[in-house]
């Protein structure tokens, strides 16, 4: 059977977890082999992805329900970036504990789980029927449940996981319910059939389906009021898992929405628009409000990421190409900034507990770290010339391009609120003087390199236009 070359990354990623976990059969728990394999594999996949030339929108199909287009490719890259950074961040937590929790074990399985979750994301973006779609979503979600509970010694972890999985399955139920009605409405699970059906006219059936689908995905994307699990889970889960959750699973969820809204539901995008706008507005407002008075870092990040989800939703109001570009671009930026923040928190959490107070006097003890933190925060707050600003700008651009000035203005004004709490964090890192009972901080070489890399990325991604084409797309293989 003919295999076009750009399926290789997917296949590799599918095989990959088995390889990593399998390697455990041949080496001890302590050995570095799985870790090395993981690095090589993930980076290899990322590089391979960059060889795929973009065709500027016109998707290409292959096997009946596995389709790859520009959005897919770029989304894969986002997911891979998230996975790579995730395992890099996780490494330290296997060597020593963090955030007042003991060290974790079975890195190989951990990596495997992440790989599976990533593959789930791949599946979602390349699905072209409801079943694959659903499977992708589940593949992306179920490992997350496990990851959240990875640290067996930690009771918070297991509580978080319990909350997560219970609510998650309810959300799945909603989703399935939505799917079933959609199937019932269109009589088929193929996107193009559904598309034509929707184009021919709507019915309450369809709308109930839409409602439940949004409810289900709203859970994963932490939209209002389905976000309630996020703060608890983000706080309870191990830090690297939190990071992966806040990027990979969000990316998967938003990819799901993009595929849905610009795929089968495209004909009714106009009618859905006010609904989306409402979701976006409430979500980012509530997220910002929640973050105002936080004192614990990961809970704070949870609320901030809720708000970010709200911002992303705004892009869905725009026309397909602009919206997709905006979302991809923003996800890149968001992933980088978020991981930068989490790396800094990781270093803090390794020596102190993860609260605002333990940031005190950071600018005196480790100026470089303080600068990195400030860069990350300002980027998340959307201050130029950092990448975060251009990301947000693009989201709003997409939203405004169809004339939704109201929601854009609201979102922009909310930026002030956001800036307020990001400043709170920067204040404790830059302004407050250190109190001496805080343990000193130490950075390993890898951590320093990663932080420098990410900081540069955050500064550069904004002003340098990329996404026009993949880096190595010149040479085909």
């Amino acid at each position, binding site marked *: 059977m003919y295999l076009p070359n750009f399926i290789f990354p997917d296949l590799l990623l599918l095989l990959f977890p088995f390889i990593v976990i399998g390697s455990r059969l041949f080496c001890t728990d302590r050995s570095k082999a799985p870790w090395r394999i993981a690095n090589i594999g993930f980076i290899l996949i990322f590089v391979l992805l960059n060889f795929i030339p973009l065709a500027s929108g016109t998707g290409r199909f292959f096997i009946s329900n596995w389709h790859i287009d520009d959005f897919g490719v770029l989304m894969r890259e986002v997911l891979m970036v998230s996975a790579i950074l995730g395992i890099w961040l996780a490494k330290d937590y296997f060597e020593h504990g963090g955030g007042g929790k003991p060290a974790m074990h079975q890195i190989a399985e951990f990596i495997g789980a992440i790989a599976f979750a990533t593959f789930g994301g791949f599946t979602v973006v390349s699905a072209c029927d409801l079943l694959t779609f659903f499977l992708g979503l589940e593949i992306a979600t179920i490992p997350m449940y496990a990851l959240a509970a990875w640290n067996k010694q930690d009771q918070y972890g297991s509580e978080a996981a319990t909350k997560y999985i219970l609510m998650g399955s309810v959300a799945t139920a909603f989703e399935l319910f939505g799917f079933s009605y959609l199937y019932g409405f269109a009589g088929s699970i193929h996107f193009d059939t559904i598309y034509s059906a929707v184009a021919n006219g709507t019915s309450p059936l369809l709308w109930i389906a839409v409602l439940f689908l949004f409810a289900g995905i709203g859970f994963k994307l932490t939209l209002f009021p389905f976000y309630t699990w996020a703060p608890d889970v983000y706080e309870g889960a191990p830090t690297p898992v939190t990071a992966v959750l806040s990027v990979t699973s969000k990316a998967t969820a938003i990819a799901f929405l993009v595929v849905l809204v610009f795929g089968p539901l495209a004909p009714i995008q106009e009618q859905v628009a006010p609904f989306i706008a409402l979701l976006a507005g409430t979500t980012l407002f509530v997220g910002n409000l929640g973050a105002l008075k936080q004192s614990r870092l990961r809970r704070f990040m949870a609320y901030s990421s809720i708000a970010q989800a709200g911002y992303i939703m705004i892009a869905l109001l725009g026309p397909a190409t602009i919206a997709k570009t905006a979302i991809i671009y923003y996800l890149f930026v968001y992933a980088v900034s978020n991981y930068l923040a989490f790396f800094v928190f990781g270093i803090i959490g390794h020596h102190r507990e993860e609260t605002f107070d333990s940031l005190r006097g950071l600018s005196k003890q480790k*100026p470089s770290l303080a600068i990195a933190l400030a860069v990350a925060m300002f980027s998340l707050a959307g201050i130029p010339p950092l990448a975060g600003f251009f990301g947000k700008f693009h989201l709003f651009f997409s939203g405004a391009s169809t004339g939704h000035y109201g929601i854009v203005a609201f979102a922009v004004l909310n930026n002030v609120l956001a800036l307020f709490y990001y400043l709170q964090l920067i204040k404790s890192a830059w302004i407050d003087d250190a109190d001496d009972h805080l343990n000193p901080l130490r950075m390993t070489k890898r951590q320093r390199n990663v932080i420098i890399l990410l900081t540069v990325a955050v500064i550069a991604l904004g002003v340098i236009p990329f996404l026009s084409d993949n880096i190595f797309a010149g040479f085909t293989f």
Partner: protein
Amino acid sequence: MDTLLFNLIWVIPLITVLVCAPIDGKRQSLLKTIHAASGTLVLLLVGFLTYRLYSLGIENAAKESAPLLLHYYMDIPWLHMFNAHYAVGADGLNMFLLFLTAVIVWGGILVSWNIKGNQKVFFALIQLLATSVYGVFMSMDLVLFFVFYEMEALCMYLMIAGYGSGRKDYGGKKLTLTLAFGSSMILATLFGLYFESGINSWSLVELSKITLPMDFQMWAFPLMFMGFAVSSSLFPFHFWSPDGHSAAPTAVSMLAAGVMMKMGAYGCLRVAMFLMPEAAKIWLPYVVALLIFNVVLGPFIALRHKDLKYITAYSSISHLGLIFLGLAAMTPVGLRGASLQMISHGFLTGLFFATIGMIYERTHTRDITEMGGIMRKLPFLGVGFVIAGFAGLGLPGFSGFIAESNIFIGAFQQESTLTRIVTVLAILSITTTAVYILQTANRMLHGNMPAKYETLTDACFREKLVVVVLVLCLLLIGVFPGWIADMLDQSIAPIFAKINSAL
């Protein structure tokens, strides 16, 4: 060649930051020397370019930049994702504002020579701030403009809260958030500008060629105008400036009051009024009502304050009110007066904050009731402050008078009743200005000196240099207003033409 140099203006500070990045923070003198050198370099560069622009004259302006008459104009695609361009250029107005910025930045670097805290970071932040301000006054593309305009928020908080005095965190947050609030209003309207214009362009030049739909203008103009006015502390949004300035370190107060507050007024003129003249005609006569607070009550509030920086902050508020009076007049003289006031007040308030900072370094208090008679110990600084004061109360011979007379005469040409009332009030309130300035000067410099100040030492060479240069700038404009007025007229002309052509 000139264009290349022109772009260097905002690049040099960045390069300086990069150069200083690897240097060890301990070697402060080296760092400071590098920064001072780059500041001087930029100052010379801008001075040269200003002279070039003056000598080239209006007829050699870039043709493709019509209707604006820009020099050093270049326009290259930048972010194709939302077709933002890298478009820069300058006419008389921009050039003078750039010169003002260069002087203030240079002065700021020299003034904060022995600032407490991590100097490496502080000077890097100053340079970043400088970059952003230069960028604002250079950019002719709205995205670029906004990027630079919003950049200052990034530096401001860190500088104020990190190196300030008093309620620094409060002041810093208040300033940063209020400015962010203003710029968010601007951003919201920018999108509208792009999509409603129908030509999908961010370029000022392109946008100025078309007339935006009226219904859009009607809601967009007030939003954008107020958004810009926030950073120029127009009445309802002036509350950030006293607390911000008083908390900020000297250099930052100089930059904030001297330059950043002008960015707002500049935006009002260059973007809001220029692109939406029809709405401006309808709205501005009402905006004037807000000025009653700025121009009339501002001085009175200053009268009740004891803290030097609060006094100066409120005087800035009232002076910026005059800028808006000139803008609201929408007559050539008024607009010219407004732009003159931007420049003149920049130097003026720079001098004010510089001297205040130097005095504060010595007396360690800004409360005028605790001082007195220090003129005897600090004659130079005292004279500097008095000169600033006289320039502030619009004494002929200094730039302030030129600007104010332009504004008054220009504003009186605007027929609307409200404007007339405000103009009359503004003219009469020059007395109040005199009262608080003299009261401050007398309390602080004259009378009996407390014994604890016997040991004070007068300004060192570095500080004298700053003061002298600023005073010279004030005098230059004040004594020979003709040529600068002409250059400003040339750059006002297209704007006024657009306003005039509006129904």
